[in-house]
Structure formats: structure tokens, C-alpha cells
């Protein structure tokens, strides 16, 4: 019995700790486990979740994408501005195309030219911040006919009681999970992340695979921008600031390795949801808003530590 418990803790220490946290919050608040609150949390994480789905592809190849935060800002500004100029459908097409194009730039620099992904995407982060101000002229943009556009569907409507952004997030996650698990492209990504040299020796074009992961990351950021623009019906120049870290936090918390080759979309969804519930729980327990910033990364450090300890058999041993 004791051994079984130890085994459980070793394998799923993080999830057990999370369950304990959930139980603790639930015992101390009434609203926490209500359907309404759960859907609220899911709606809140749908934007970061959507982005994390794409960034997971990049991370699985052993690379990073830190540009998604300011890419989200730029794309949200674009979708809102274009909505006013060209209508909702064109705005969405342009936004998604722009997301893919920006991702492709990252993809060429990291994948084909072989530059370090941290440097490239940090540069892109900074470059896009500048581009936002250039595009918007420094002022906020708002959708002019906010009351009567069908564009509101993506941020504000529900489908069978489930918020549309949540449906979009989970649908994107399902497609991504299928691609990673059941297609040759998915296998190539795990191969490149697990051992790039061996993959090249196996005839896999690792540069091409890496390139496409960044395009996917740009695409999901475009989808996230559509949700964001629709929810806010406008865009400030800082709307996506810090999102890259939240996205990365969710991926790491889920247990996908930053070294590549190990992890999954399921883990990312779990990690993102855990972050959402932790932040929501802290608010419900009456902690001020900024406490989540103190707690989030502390939780991640502890999670990584537990994981490492469990692998070395030192904790719970």
C-alpha cells in the first residue's frame, strides 16, 4: 500500500499536488467548482492555450518561440483595424496570413539559416513591438460597429453552453494532437527534437520541419488574436505583453521538455488549465491580483524540481 502510494507520487506527483490544491480551494470557497466558474477559467485560458498549442510544436523540436506575445499584440491590432477597413472576413484572412508570414520569418532564420532560436525570437519580439507602434501610430484601435458585427462570435458567444473560444482552443488542440500523434510530420518533429543528427541521418529534412513549426506557431497566434480582438472589440499597444511567458509556463508545467523530443499537446492543455485554475483559485481565496505573478513561476520551479527528483528517485523514495 505504501509502495503503491510512493509509485503514484513518483509518476504523477505534480497532478497529485494540483488535486490537493484544488481540493483546498474548493473546501474554502463555494464558487470554485461550479460549472460557471470552470467555464470562466477555460475561457480565460483559451487565448494562451491556443498560442501554446502552436508553440508546443516549436518546443518539441527543442527550440523556443518568445515572439508570440508581441505577435499577438500586432495581430490583434491588425484584426481590429482591418475589421474597420475591410470587414470581418477579410480581417481574419489577413490576420491569419500575417501570422503565418511572421512565423515563416522565424522559421527561415531558425530552421533554414540555423540561428539560435532564443536570439531570433527575442529579436522578433522586440521588432514586432516597434512594428505595432508604427502600424497603429501609437494610439489604441477599436472596432467601430462593435454592437452589430458577427465578429463578436469568437470572443463572446457560446455553443451549447460552452464559450466559443473554449471550443476553438479545444478543437485546435485536438487537431494538433492528431497531427503529432498520427502523421508523418508529427513523427518527424519528435525525431528532430529527440535527436536531430540521427534524424538527418534518417533522411528527415530537419530544417523544413523546424520551419513549419514556426509557421504553425504563427497561425495559432493569429487564431488567438481573433479571439482577443473579438473579446475586447479593440486593441491596445500592449495587449499581448507577457503572453509569451505565460504560454511557456503552461507548456513547461505540463511537462513538455524544453530540450525537445518529449511532451504532447495533452500535456500542454493540462499545464495551461492548471495555471488557469491556480490563478483563479488564488483570486477566489482573496489574494490580490499580483500574487499570481509571485506564485506562477514558483509553482513551475517546484514542479520541475519534483519531476527531476522523482526521476532521480530522491524525493518520495
Amino acid at each position, binding site marked *: 500500500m505504501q509502495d503503491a502510494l510512493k509509485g503514484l507520487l513518483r509518476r504523477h506527483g505534480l497532478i497529485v499536488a494540483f488535486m490537493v490544491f484544488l481540493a483546498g480551494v474548493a473546501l474554502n470557497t463555494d464558487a470554485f467548482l461550479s460549472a460557471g466558474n470552470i467555464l470562466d477559467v477555460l475561457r480565460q485560458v483559451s487565448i494562451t492555450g491556443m498560442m501554446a498549442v502552436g508553440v508546443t510544436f516549436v518546443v518539441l523540436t527543442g527550440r523556443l518561440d518568445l515572439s508570440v506575445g508581441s505577435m499577438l499584440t500586432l495581430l490583434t491590432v491588425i484584426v481590429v483595424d482591418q475589421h474597420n477597413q475591410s470587414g470581418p472576413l477579410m480581417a481574419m484572412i489577413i490576420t491569419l496570413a500575417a501570422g503565418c508570414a511572421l512565423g515563416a520569418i522565424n522559421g527561415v532564420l531558425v530552421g533554414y539559416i540555423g540561428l539560435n532560436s532564443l536570439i531570433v525570437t527575442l529579436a522578433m519580439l522586440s521588432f514586432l513591438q516597434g512594428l505595432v507602434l508604427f502600424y497603429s501610430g501609437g494610439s489604441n484601435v477599436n472596432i467601430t460597429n462593435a454592437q452589430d458585427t458577427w465578429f463578436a462570435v469568437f470572443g463572446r458567444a457560446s455553443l451549447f453552453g460552452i464559450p466559443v473560444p473554449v471550443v476553438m482552443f479545444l478543437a485546435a488542440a485536438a487537431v494538433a494532437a492528431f497531427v503529432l500523434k498520427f502523421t508523418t510530420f508529427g*513523427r518527424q518533429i519528435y*525525431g528532430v527534437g*529527440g535527436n536531430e543528427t540521427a534524424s538527418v541521418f534518417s533522411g*528527415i529534412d530537419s530544417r523544413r520541419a523546424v520551419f513549419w513549426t514556426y509557421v504553425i506557431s504563427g497561425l495559432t497566434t493569429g487564431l488567438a488574436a481573433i479571439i482577443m480582438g473579438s473579446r475586447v472589440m479593440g486593441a491596445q499597444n500592449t495587449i499581448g505583453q507577457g503572453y509569451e511567458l505565460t504560454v511557456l509556463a503552461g507548456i513547461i508545467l505540463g511537462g513538455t521538455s524544453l530540450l525537445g523530443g518529449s511532451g504532447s499537446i495533452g500535456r500542454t492543455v493540462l499545464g495551461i488549465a492548471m495555471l488557469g485554475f491556480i490563478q483563479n483559485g488564488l483570486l477566489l481565496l482573496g489574494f490580490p491580483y499580483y500574487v499570481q505573478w509571485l506564485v506562477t513561476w514558483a509553482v513551475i520551479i517546484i514542479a520541475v524540481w519534483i519531476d527531476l527528483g522523482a526521476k532521480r528517485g530522491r524525493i518520495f523514495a
Partner: protein
Amino acid sequence: MTDVILEVRDITKTFPGVKALDAVSFDIRPGEVHALVGENGAGKSTLMKTLAGLHQPDGGEILYMGKPITVAGPLEARQEGILLIHQELSLSPELSVAENIYLGAWPTNRFGVLKKRELRQNSAKALKALGCGFGPDVRVGTLSVAMQQMVEIARAEAFRANVVIFDEPTASLTDNEKDQLFQTIRNLKSKGVGIVYISHKMDEIFDITDRITVLRDGQVQGTVDTAGTDLNQITRMMIGRTLDNYFVKAKAEFGEEVLRVEGLSNKGLFRDVSFSVRQGEVLGLYGLVGAGRSEVVETIFGVRKADGGKLWWNGAEIPLPTPRQSIDMGMALVPESRKEQGLVLMMGGRENTSLPHLQLFSSGSIMDKKKELETYRKYQEALAIKTTGPDQAVSQLSGGNQQKFVLAKWLCANPKLIILDEPTRGIDVGSKSAIHELIAELAEKGLAVIVISSEMPEVLGVSHRVLTMSEGAVVAAFEGDGLTEENLIDAVSHQPASVAAE
């Protein structure tokens, strides 16, 4: 009266699912070289890591100079006088020789400032005692592998080690460097140091050791005097049976030419390489480490870009291919380093097997997992690969079983040419002869085979024809009665005139 420096008594070490060491006992006497042999996974490395403080035993005791000790970590082991010289060297390339000799145990004054002069003087003394041709200030990264090994051995001098453990020390040394190493080992021995020598190479074991302890499945099979035993007995102890017929050569029945290269060059690596290989033929490529053999086949396969040269495939001239094109044409390359180039270690055997041929195991980009699993099972059975299942990470398998998966991943697409680069390096005797048999079998089935090997008996034993390479050029070719050790040694020890002139 200590005629034993270090004694291990009933050491047991269990890892999840495996009993790596099962009541192992053995001892080391001053001034002896004690060989530790066994197949991969027999427990040699675990035992040595336990002695060097990298693992803590679950049971049993270690007696050092007659007293029981616990070795808390590698630094403590070194301070005590027990030194492990790793298979993969544990040096920091950016630091100087002196700093590496004392790595982690630098002499400092009471403010924690490095005593540079003491460090240099002591290091210089240790290097001189070993007869090294370089000083303490050289950056380690600029030294050759053999010289780096001497830096590690210099630790034995510097720390006045009583026990030095060598783990596969000759894996990447040339014959010349090996002779120097053996001189050094004899030197240490004459000073009364007890030496443990781990190797797969039996000729070395019989050359340098005094006693041999054989491990199998974590248990000691016995300890014998080297002078009173022979290869047969040791092999029998290691695998529990005798290996007759160590080498099998395929029947010499050749068909059409499969591959021909002419004037292949790659700047700084090799130049003007020309040869061809036919169906059913085993072509050996022999040469010292660094002669450019691996680079040649990697260039043919397309992993490296050539600077010039022509290539014919099945008689038709084609542009130099990319790896993808090579694979699709029916070329297979079992690379030199199975861990770095051959396998995705965190994947299982199933996913590794299909990796080069994803298009064969899918329809419309969707993986056909059933077909993948069937192929995995077929080769896992045919090659007798020991795993717990199709998805057990190959990192957990022994070297021999890993190598068999590298073979499986290429054989499953029925190649026309298979290139094997050091196919038996670092694997156990049993797997080794299985691979030799496989080479003969493949050639008799009509494949063209190229074998690169640094082991002369192997290259002579399996090949119909051998090319020797030296410093980036093909210097000679031998076949039939010309396939002798003398010829090969003679060929590789002469520098090619064209390259020497550069």
C-alpha cells in the same frame, strides 16, 4: 601486510527493474592489472561507478587498505586515491591542462584564491613523470584524444592514486597511441598502483593484464590468472557457450555494380577517392581513426556536401544525392556513433525502425501504426533483440541491442547497398558475431556491403576486398591472398605522397 589494496565484498546494486550487481566480490592487488570483462549490461560499468563514488551500493562493503570505507562521490574517491578514467573523457576543454588535472580540487589559499604556481608546478611534475610532450598551460580542447587521456592519467600521479580504473581506454586510440598507453600502464604498475582494466578487446586483455574477472548478468563468473587461461575459456565464461567460427565470409559471387564513385573530394577531409562495389560483395574500408573513412561514406550518403566527384548508381551517373534521395534509391548507412547518429534514444524500437521510411509506413501522411508494429515485430524477432516492448526507450537497451535496432531501421526497407561504419564498436561478443553472420547473409542475398572497421581481424574476416585509407586518401586495395594483416599495416603506415606534399 596488505597484499590487497581494494576489496569489494558482496556488493549489490539494484536499479528499477534490474539487479545490476548481485553479491559481487573481487579484489585488486598492488602492482597488478586486473581485467574486468563481460558482455554489455553485465555490470562492469556499474561496479566501477560504485567504486568511484558515482553510485552508492545497496548492500555489501568496500574495504580499502583493509578498512571498510564509503565512497561518497568522485572527488572523495580521488582524494582517497581511487581514480576512474572514463570511457568518455571528463575534461573541460576550455580549461588548461593543469586546471583539468586538479579539476574540482584546485589548491587555494584561505581566501579561496587559486594558487596558480603550485597548480602549475605540481601538474608539470605529474606530466613529466608520464613523459608527456606538452606543458601544463595548454588548453585541453587543442589536444588530441590520446593526449587528453594522458591528462586524466596525470591525475593518478598528482593525487598519488593507489587504484586506477580504466574504462575502455583504447576505444578511440590509434595503434601507436595504444602502445604508449600500455607503456604508461606498465609504468604505473611498477610503482605498485593497482589497475582495473575494462575492455571488450580480448587481445589487449591478454596483452596487458595479470588476472581476469568475468561478470555475467551482474554476477561474478570467476577470477582467473591471465597466464593460465585462453580466449575460449573467457568467452565461454562471458556468454555461457563457445563461439566457433568467429568470422563467416560470404560466398564470393558478385553481380552488377551497384555504386561507383570517382574523384570524390571534400576539402580538408579527403580527396580524390574512387572505388566501386558490386552486388554480393563486401568491401572493407580500413584505416586509422581520422583517416577520413566515415567522412567518405557520409559524403556519399549525402549527410556531408562534397566539393567534387562523380557518382554512379546501378550503372547510371547521377548527381550527388541528399540523404532522402539516397534512402529512396536503396542506400542505407549504419553510422559510426549509434547514440548520436543512429538512434533517437528516447523513442522505442518501433518508432526508430520506421523513422527513415515514414512514407512506407503511412498513407496520405497518416501513419499506419499496424504496419509499423508488424515490421517492428518481424525484425525484433529476426535479429533477436531483447526489449520489454515496442515502445521501451532504446536508451535503456544494451549497446548490442541498440545496434540491432539501427540495423533493423535500415533492413526493413530492403536496401540495395548497406554501409556499416564500425558496426561492432563497443558491443558484446555475442551481438558481434551475430552482426558478422548478418553481413555474410546480406551479401549472399545480393546486397552490396561496405564495412568500415578499425579492427583488423574484423575487416579481414568479413570482406572480399579491402581499401586502405590514410590521411584522406585511398592508398591501397587488397583482395584474395593479399588480405593479410601485414599488408594492411604496411599500407596505412605510409603517408600518401600527394597529401603529404600539401
